[in-house]
């Protein structure tokens, strides 16, 4: 489990270029402008490459994947 968490944090840090998300896992990624819609798609593509989990672009509402913890939950429940 812990491994998945870390991989996802790494992906988000990598895509956004912001380190703080590693510590603050409940901040709103879109409101804080850490992710925009382009970065969100990049994250979906990266999640597919890394975990083989496909999340369709309109499958989730933004409110369902707007924090690091929510992204982790969405991926974990699909593994």
């Amino acid at each position, binding site marked *: 489990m812990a491994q998945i968490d870390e991989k996802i944090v790494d992906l988000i840090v990598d895509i956004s270029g912001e380190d703080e998300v590693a510590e603050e896992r409940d901040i709103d990624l879109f409101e804080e402008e850490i992710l925009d*819609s382009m970065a969100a798609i990049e994250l979906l593509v990266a999640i597919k490459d890394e975990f083989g989990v496909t999340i369709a672009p309109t499958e989730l509402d933004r409110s369902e994947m707007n924090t690091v913890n929510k992204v982790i939950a969405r991926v974990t429940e699909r593994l």
Partner: protein
Amino acid sequence: MEFFAEPAFFALCVPIVAVAIVLGVLERSLGRYSLVASVAMLFLMFFRTPGTLIYAAVYLVVSAVLYRMVLNLFATKNPHAVAQYRVALALQLLPLVAYKVGVLVTTDFPGFLGISYITFKSVQVLIETRDGLITDMTTLEYLGFLSFFPTFTSGPILRSRTFVENVRTPLGRDGYLDRLYRGIGWFVLGVLYKFVGAALAQWFMWFVPAYVGQGAFGWLITVFGYGLYLFFDFAGYSDMAMGLGLALGIEVPRNFRAPFVAVDIKEFWDRWHMSLSTWLRDFVFMRFSAFALGRKLFKSRLTCACLGFMLNMVLMGAWHGLTPDYLVYGLYHGLLLAGCHLMQKKWKFYKKHRRDRWFKVVSWVLTMVAVFFGFALFGGYVVSPLLG
């Protein structure tokens, strides 16, 4: 009968809504009823031209068949599913594409009022069925969604999953009345916008230039009035459609949210014709980006985003019509969005000052100038005169 324009339309809406209110208060589902009402209204709209009536009916039936086919393809894990899905998608797009090209050749090319908007809905259903997000929508529910008369001719563009959820979820009396009251509010606002706001704007754009002359100033006045007219006319129509939809128990999405307060062009498109811009974002921009990023077609995410914006807006322009005015309009907004995106990502000055009040004021003024010039392109006040 023309929807939302002729007195006959509004007169017919009275008994239709009255029955909906009785059903809603008795806590009955409105799904079947709104399908019957929609089919009746579409019949009244098209029956004078039997050709279009038949075309619209065939379109609905063929769309339902294509949906069932795609649903079966992925449910049975057919090995050729993806290829066959692409054929279905192409067939679904064909009537609109043929129509847009065909009208360039002859204005009599077969089509029906609403073909542009219904295509968004049927394409959304095929794509999301392929994504596995639509698994149990019944054929009747799908026909109810496609034919839903308040939004049939000009949107707002409904999404099938919201529609089906609305139809299936029992509202209870209070839940229905809440939608009804909100619907009445939107409808009244829409009437004011369309029949007062748009009429005043039209008066302004026609009469003021007659006094100030047809020179550059007259042109500016005309374009300013035209932009306001576009807003009041379309927002007014959209709000009426939303109100009528709510009275039938359906949460029709909002199309406009104060577009003239936007401080950058991205924000403008988050506020202007929103059901179109979010559709394009979800089914063009995001799909294109996911495709391009997945195959690493571009070195940088920035290039990919800029091309995505261009593709999105050029398609939007072409969807309005394959004329120089609309195509330039689409290209123009594509360039503006790409430029805005580059500025936000690369310009340090922007990052430092974007929250300052003076910066927002300057940005707002520039955005409005760009927006109204866009209206001038859209309305044929720039390209057509230049082309003679």
